[in-house]
């Protein structure tokens, strides 16, 4: 067996082990740790599949942001003494869930096996038309031009998800600040880390969105990195979360989707919703990509921060 294939098989096997351990483990914290590991392995798997864009997103979300979110959730449960494994569902419910999951797996397998043998899919069509999209990274061309309505709806879904989280706020805390006030020892290791890393993280985030128009990278990957930097600033006590009643923060969240929607509507006046001629599309796509990055970063960071828990 050649080493590359052997590596792929070993990587796939380890990813399955990590996934099973995360789902089947009895200790909640161990499950969180296994889930973080699973994200790292899946990012590597995407690299091996040649999908560097997806690998970047998985590395940022799966291995980075989700870990912070899940450990925060574990911490709150732990403090409420709710980490004991609750009584499991009945065996009928388990059987039903297992049956449903197995059917989905079989369905995916059948579809996968049934794919045309050449495996080209829509790639040739994208390659032929990428020149007309205004950008040279085919993935960005698909996300922000050919299938722009998907991306538009995704950004709106994120904003709606945040509204849903905020709607769980208790009345007297409405407009308040999410999470506990974080603090760290002045000049200590954590406080220093929270001052050293963010500039580098900011650089990486800006680099990723800049790279996105011609190489793997883009708004979602960059936004996740920026959201993580935001969370680190908060965790190290360098900055507090904004109040959710703040007009500035609300404008930041809707700016990206709003600009995108305005662009789509502008296209509608020229003929097609979200359709633009190549000569203006490139510049507009890049502008939208940058604004989206800021909006998505703020939305993701506030989604992790959760519901307001204090007024001051």
């Amino acid at each position: 067996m050649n080493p590359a294939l052997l590596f792929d098989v070993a990587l796939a096997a380890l990813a399955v082990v990590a996934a099973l351990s995360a789902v089947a483990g009895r200790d909640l914290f161990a499950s969180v740790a296994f889930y973080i590991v699973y994200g790292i392995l899946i990012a590597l798997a995407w690299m091996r599949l040649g999908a560097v864009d997806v690998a970047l997103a998985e590395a940022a979300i799966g291995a980075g942001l989700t870990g912070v979110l899940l450990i925060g959730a574990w911490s709150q449960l732990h403090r409420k003494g709710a980490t004991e494994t609750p009584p499991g569902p009945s065996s009928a419910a388990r059987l039903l869930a297992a049956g449903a999951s197995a059917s989905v797996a079989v369905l995916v397998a059948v579809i996968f096996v049934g794919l045309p043998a050449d495996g080209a899919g829509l790639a040739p069509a994208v390659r032929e038309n990428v020149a007309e999209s205004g950008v040279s990274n085919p993935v960005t061309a698909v996300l922000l031009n050919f299938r722009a309505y998907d991306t538009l709806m995704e950004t709106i879904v994120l904003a709606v998800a945040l509204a849903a989280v905020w709607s769980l706020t208790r009345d007297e805390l409405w407009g308040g600040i999410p999470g506990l006030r974080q603090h760290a020892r002045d000049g200590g290791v954590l406080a220093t880390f929270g001052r050293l890393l963010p500039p580098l993280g900011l650089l990486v985030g800006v680099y990723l969105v800049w790279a996105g128009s011609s190489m793997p990278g883009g708004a979602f990957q960059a936004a996740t990195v920026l959201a993580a930097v935001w969370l680190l600033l908060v965790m190290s006590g360098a900055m507090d979360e904004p109040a959710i009643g703040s007009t500035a923060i609300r404008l930041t969240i809707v700016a990206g989707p709003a600009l995108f929607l305005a662009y789509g509507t502008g296209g509608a006046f020229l003929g097609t919703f979200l359709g633009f001629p190549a000569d203006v599309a490139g510049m507009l796509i890049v502008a939208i990509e940058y604004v989206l990055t800021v909006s998505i970063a703020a939305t993701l960071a506030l989604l992790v921060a959760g519901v307001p828990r204090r007024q001051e």
Partner: protein
Amino acid sequence: MNVADWLSALSILVGVAFFIAGTAGLLRFPDVHSRLHALTKADNLGLGFISLGVAIRMAEPWSIAKILVVWMLTVLAAATVAQLIARAALGTAPEEAGADDHR
């Protein structure tokens, strides 16, 4: 293979060896703090040699600069995390904050 290839391969091999040593320590050492000691060796030296090996192979300034940032980030993070985890594990008996809930 030319000289650069040999150097690159050797450096990566040494890096992998440090990773294996660090992991052996993580598995075999008896307590949290000595395991932490093993961990930081893999982080700093193992990744350092692997970065060097890959940098030699890429042989292109922009890639080498990015690899350097990767290594610096890892060293910074490893030092910070080691210090913080050591503090967090200090003075907490295994059956207190550090231990599992259902043990």
